């Protein structure tokens, strides 16, 4: 890790308009949770686990936040041509990727975790939590890392990382994974839900992820390590004019 790079990336990411938009987007799950409680619906545990956390936060908000921060951490520098100021320094490419990944991970996890905690507390106000709050909080932090690593690799690979990432989130994870059960092994969303299940202690009727706990943890670890390795390798051989 490199402190100078970490500070630079934090200023880059936090100074963007899209960060403000994401923070505003983070209010959506909270508002929906408030509306849910006001409407006084049944089965708050099931709703909090399967609808609020699994579908809205982990299915949409988490990957979108990771896409914004993960692709911007390095990708925006390729786009505007400033990457050359970092790459023309005697810093191992591994350090550049890890420093950028750390900031994008913390930014994503911070924004999504805040929404997760507040919305889940509201949704389960006065109800037993049975590990739902802690399980999904843990899953969001872990999932943020896997998604950011994946999207950072995409941003080093192509200048269209945002489009490819959106296709991955909405077509691959949103549609194809539902249609074909075997594809769940290639879905970060499924890894994240499986990680939540390591702590969530509710019946399968309430929350039932498609991957086993150990499978999810192992696949999330492998995916993170592999995408970081590929990003470092790609950055070592990065050519000016590429991804820009």
């Amino acid at each position, binding site marked *: 890790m490199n402190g100078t790079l970490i500070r630079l990336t934090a200023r880059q990411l936090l*100074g963007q308009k899209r960060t403000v938009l994401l923070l505003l987007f983070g209010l959506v799950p909270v508002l929906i949770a408030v509306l849910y409680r006001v409407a006084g619906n049944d089965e708050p545990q099931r709703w909090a686990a399967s609808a609020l956390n699994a579908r809205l936060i982990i299915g949409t908000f988490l990957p979108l936040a990771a896409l914004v921060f993960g692709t911007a951490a390095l990708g925006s520098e390729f786009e505007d041509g400033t990457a*050359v100021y970092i790459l*023309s320094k*005697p*810093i191992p*490419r591994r350090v550049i990727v890890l420093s950028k990944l750390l900031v994008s991970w913390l930014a994503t996890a911070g924004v999504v975790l805040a929404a997760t905690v507040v919305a889940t507390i509201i949704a389960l106000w006065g109800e037993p939590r049975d590990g739902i709050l802690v399980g999904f909080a843990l899953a969001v932090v872990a999932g943020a890392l896997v998604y950011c690593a994946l999207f950072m690799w995409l941003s080093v690979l192509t200048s269209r990382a945002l489009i490819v990432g959106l296709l991955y989130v909405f077509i691959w994870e949103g549609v194809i994974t539902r249609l074909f059960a075997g594809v769940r092994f290639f879905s970060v969303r499924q890894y994240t839900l499986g990680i939540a299940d390591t702590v969530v202690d509710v019946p399968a009727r309430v929350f039932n992820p498609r991957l086993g706990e150990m499978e999810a943890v192992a696949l999330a670890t492998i995916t993170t390590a592999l995408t970081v390795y590929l990003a470092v390798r790609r950055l070592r*051989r*990065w050519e*000016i*004019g590429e991804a820009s």
Partner: protein
Amino acid sequence: MSAPAPPIAVINVSRWYGNIVAVNDISFALGPGITGLLGPNGAGKSTMLHMLSGFLQPSAGELRVFGESAWENPGMYRRIGLVPEREAVYPFLTGYEFVLLAAQLQRLPNPEEAARQAIAMVELEDAAGRATGGYSKGMKQRVKIAAALVHDPEILLLDEPFNGADPRQRLQMMAMLREMAARGRTILFSSHILEEVERLAEEVLVIVAGRLAASGDFREIRKLMTDRPHTFNVRSSDNRALAAALVADPSVYGVELQDGLLQVRTGEFAAFTLAIPGVARQAGVSIYELRPTDESLESVFSYLVKR
């Protein structure tokens, strides 16, 4: 004991993008001093600088910086400073922060002092506290140069460094580069403007259409450019009499009369332009118009390639 490797050695280097050849079998070696990389736009100058700075892999040949490959070698950036052509800087950083960033990434022992010195070298102290997003093109160029030389590199590569600089800034930057060269630094800068190269570079590399058209001492190359065949169109009070008089002049090797115009071909530009007023006066002819037919830089370059 073997001689130390030259700062820059380029050996039969080519680079192509698909079917397009950007750099074609170029070889040269550079030592301390200022070298100008001259050529028209699209000639391959930036491609060559990008390969030298390790940001493009040669498709063929070898490219060595202090004896080491420039490709996949981040360690060499301790000894190299690069000023890219693109204007982009981090708009949210002040000029000082931008140069300090470079100093810190170079892991200099006193980055704050190094940043202040580099900013002073490019005379940007007054604007150092302002965000670079509000800088003019010339100021961005100077802050980029300050960031590139903050670690006092042995090699400085500059891609079109005088773009956007006003004449005073240009002179100041030239003086600074000359001072660096005097301290034994190797400086290579690209330009498509002959006068810039003429004023600054001792050595020159002329690249045209990806090929090295000429290289060496600038005065020799300037002579080559000047003494190439030139054609002048002349309109006078008596073209026929002037043609007869000019044929006898040693600087002229051909004349042609067509449609009220006299076309004169010469192999010695300077001698011809000095001789023609006297020749015309002796022949009793008044010259109304004397115009070289093609003096564009592109035509000069294409002559060097065909030579």
